[in-house]
């Protein structure tokens, strides 16, 4: 590895984290801005004064000048980068001026007028971009010759609905409060739909599929609309936008969209045509399918119960003892080993050799030591499922122990003192004081382990590959979707998995509501 490579890599992390930090800081600054007349500090001067604007404008000018000067001097300042930076400079200066003019002009106006004016200006800017980008792509504007056809198309598909939405919401700004909120929500949702519809229509006419990004944009518009709707309600909830938008966006793109896609996929065959409930029929007519389902149920009952129980017991036993950290480390260690590593370790433990040979697996060594016959532990159904479950328990106990141990330390010492003064024995103190004190942590631990258990497939895959009646739904799903080329069946199994988790979700909602009621 050359030093340059290393620098490049570290730079990625540093720049990435720094950029993230700046974005979050800006969001939070936006959050704590004050709507009132009182303005203080730099933010206030930004609104009122000349100086900060001049500084910002100068910075933009500097960027553009630097780009032009460096072009041709250093190799990494490419033509494209130079043009981009110069454009950035122009856009920045224009932005500063516009903001100044608007701010000045609108100072005496009512909030409704201000909101409408900002929206209209925004719409105009987007419209300009939407008009300019395709011109750049067609070569009419040399400055914009870097615009790709895809980018121009994206600008058209997303830009016009956005312009429309901004213009209409500007008009709505003067409507009464209640109507305004609902209308704005409707407008944003319509814009989102428009993006999808126009993308679908355009996609029909060309060979190259547009891909998934119109959906992403539509989702973004929809989220913006819904969150705006919520935030409009009362002033207190506005900050929520800042706190939730980043997470909501990522989740929509990365999980909601795949979930919807999976749900649709479950009713298609491998060529992607709709085939009704065939996949589910297949699932429940396969002889092994019922075994797989039964195994999954056994897993999800035993693993959370046993690992939580053992983890809790261990946490209580070692609580405040000397060497507690060391003890914790011992049980925590399996957590730090990857599933694949755990698979190797336990293959060792369960290894089998014929009775006439030296055993290399500890379990069989112990069995033969006490005069028994060595067993094919991973092969003898149904005990082999139990053998795999032990591996998962071995891993998850560390999680339960760590979280519960922390929870136990949160139980006020005074309460335990009081209980012992009342003559409670250790078990009573535990069940009457400690246990209620850590109830919510217990729920969290059991829930988390249950879900992790349902999703686990590495252990089964590395240790038995689902043979000998040990398969579980998650393993079967992976096999079908990626190995056998049957994504529809994989998706159907994923839906079944979801149904299995539903009870856990419902229970947690109930607990959540109880807590809310108490507060």
């Amino acid at each position, binding site marked *: 590895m050359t030093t340059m490579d290393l620098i490049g890599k570290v730079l990625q992390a540093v720049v990435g984290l720094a950029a993230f930090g700046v974005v979050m800081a800006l969001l939070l600054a936006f959050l704590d801005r004050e709507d009132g007349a009182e303005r203080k500090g730099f933010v206030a001067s930004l609104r009122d004064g*000349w100086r900060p*604007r*001049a500084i910002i*404008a*100068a910075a*933009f*000018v500097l960027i*553009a*000048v630097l780009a*032009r000067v460096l*072009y*041709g001097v250093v*190799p990494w300042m*490419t*033509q494209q980068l*130079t*043009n981009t930076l*110069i*454009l950035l*400079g*122009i856009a920045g*200066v*224009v932005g500063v*001026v516009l903001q100044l003019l608007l701010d000045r002009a609108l100072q005496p106006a009512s909030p409704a007028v201000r909101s409408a004016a900002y929206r209209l200006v925004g719409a105009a800017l987007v419209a300009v971009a939407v008009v300019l980008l395709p011109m750049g792509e067609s070569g009419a504007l*040399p*400055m914009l010759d870097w615009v790709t056809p895809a980018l121009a198309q994206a600008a058209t598909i997303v830009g016009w609905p956005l312009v429309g939405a901004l213009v209409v919401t500007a008009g709505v700004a003067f409507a009464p409060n209640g109507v305004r909120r609902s209308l704005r929500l409707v407008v944003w949702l319509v814009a989102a739909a428009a993006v999808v519809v126009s993308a679908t229509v355009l996609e029909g006419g060309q060979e190259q599929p547009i*891909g998934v990004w119109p959906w992403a944009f539509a989702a973004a518009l929809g989220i913006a609309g819904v969150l705006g709707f919520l935030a409009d309600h009362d002033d207190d909830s506005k900050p929520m936008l800042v706190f939730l938008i980043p997470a909501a966006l990522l989740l929509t793109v990365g999980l909601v969209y795949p979930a919807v896609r999976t749900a649709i996929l479950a009713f298609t065959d*491998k060529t992607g045509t709709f085939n009704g409930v065939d996949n589910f029929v297949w699932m429940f007519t396969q*002889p092994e399918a019922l075994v797989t389902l039964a195994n999954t149920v056994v897993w999800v009952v035993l693993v959370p119960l046993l690992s939580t129980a053992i983890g809790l017991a261990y946490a209580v036993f070692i609580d405040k003892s000397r060497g507690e950290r060391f003890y914790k480390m011992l049980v925590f260690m399996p957590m730090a080993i990857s599933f694949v590593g755990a698979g190797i370790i336990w293959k060792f433990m369960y290894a*089998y*050799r*014929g*009775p*006439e*040979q030296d055993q290399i697996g500890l379990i069989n060594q112990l069995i033969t030591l006490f005069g028994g016959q060595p067993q*094919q532990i*991973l*092969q003898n159904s149904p005990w082999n499922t139990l053998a795999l479950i032990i591996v998962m328990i071995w891993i998850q106990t560390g999680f339960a122990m760590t979280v519960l141990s922390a929870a136990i330390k949160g139980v006020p010492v005074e309460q335990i003192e009081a209980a012992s003064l009342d003559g409670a024995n250790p078990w009573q103190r535990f069940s009457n004081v400690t246990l209620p004190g850590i109830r919510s942590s217990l729920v969290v631990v059991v829930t988390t382990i249950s879900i992790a258990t349902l999703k686990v497939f590495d252990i089964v*895959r*590395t240790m*038995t*590959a*689902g*043979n*000998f009646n040990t398969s579980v739904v998650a393993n079967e799903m*992976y*096999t079908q979707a*990626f*190995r*056998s*080329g*049957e994504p529809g069946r994989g998706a159907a199994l994923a839906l079944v998995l979801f149904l299995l988790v539903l009870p856990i979700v419902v229970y947690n909602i109930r607990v959540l509501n109880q807590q809310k009621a108490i507060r």
Partner: protein
Amino acid sequence: MKHARRVGLPLGIAGVTALALTGCVGDTAPSSSESPGAAPSGDCAEYADYGTFEGAEVNVYGTILDAEAERLNESWAQFEECTGIDVVYEGSAEFEAQINVRVQGGNPPDLGIFPQPGLLASVAGTGALLEAPEGVAANAQEFWTEDWQNYGTVDGTLYGAPLMASVKGFVWYSPSVFEENGWAVPTTLDELDELTASIAESDVTPWCVGFGSGEATGWPGTDWVEDYVLRTAGPDVYDQWVAHEIPFDSPEIATALDRVGDLIKNPDYVNGGIGDVSTIATTDFGEAGLPVLDGTCAMHHQASFYEGFWPEGTTVAEDGDVWAFLTPGTEAGAPAVTGGGEFVGAFSDDEEVVAVQTYLSSAEWANSRVSLGGVISANSGLDPENASSPLLQSAVEILQDEATTFRFDGSDLMPGAVGAGTFWTGMVDWISGGDTQSVLSTIEQSWP
């Protein structure tokens, strides 16, 4: 002061605009300077036809890992130097699953090295794979038999030329142990049965077998079955069976499987040096043959690549520690073999990709790679002398022999649901005590 600033701002804007108008750089601007590159050390004349592509990069994705991947990189090092193409190879044990993910995700590599024709066909079915370019097609015509070309062909379109090859169906044994006991290498299947029976009477167990291979557990069993189907039922039935023109559980297949069962499900014949029949399913195939060395097991059925599994210091030769004979046919002579190999499919038709793909299908590459050791190729331009060991030389000769009937490993040709699914698990069920007919019909039912 205030006045000055008011003037300054518009001035600034004007300045930037002027810069933008005059400063935006056009096509005449100097492009990134092309370095002539280091002077190639070797003789580049034979690579001249491929052209030069300074700074070009071609991504290759495949299943080949570790030391094998090293040799792969070494095999095209000279080509890279002369053409300026940077061939970036990425190997993954998860290739079979990941290639589907990448293709569907819109992020395929430039070239994929497919270990199974079935996988090549299914990826070609998605429309992502490109037809083999002219140079590749010409090379395939010139250097490979029609059988081999057909394995890279889907619906009449050639998608890729073969890369390397392996010969399956070798039976590994210890020449010295055979000699001491007066056992002779069998020339027919019946003789093999007789040999097995006579070995069983000595204190050596005839066979050691292991089906274990992580998530692919069961595949060594499919090799047994394929070898026997090809030999007992003939190549025509084999082709029909693989193409599902006859049911998977046809009588011919059941006969072949039963014949395998006579050997490796017989408690007297297995599992030398490891345990009883039940150990076969879990014993790792890599370790299963090792008892041949210490004489606790007489024979081990495994492909030519098993040569690399013997511990360091083992001599593989006709008079060495271990050697192998090809599983015989029903009659002596006229060898029929099963084997495997890789195929190179392209997801891009950029010129540099075409150049690499064409090079990989050439006899030059085959000789370059084979002389680095460990593998062979069915490329007819390959000089058997280049093969790194006596065993590989004999394997090359078998492949290049006109009289040889070659058939590709059947499970690699079947749809993934069977060939990498129920066929594997079916063999595990079968060796764990499952009855031949019911195992075969379970696999038949799973055929998509």
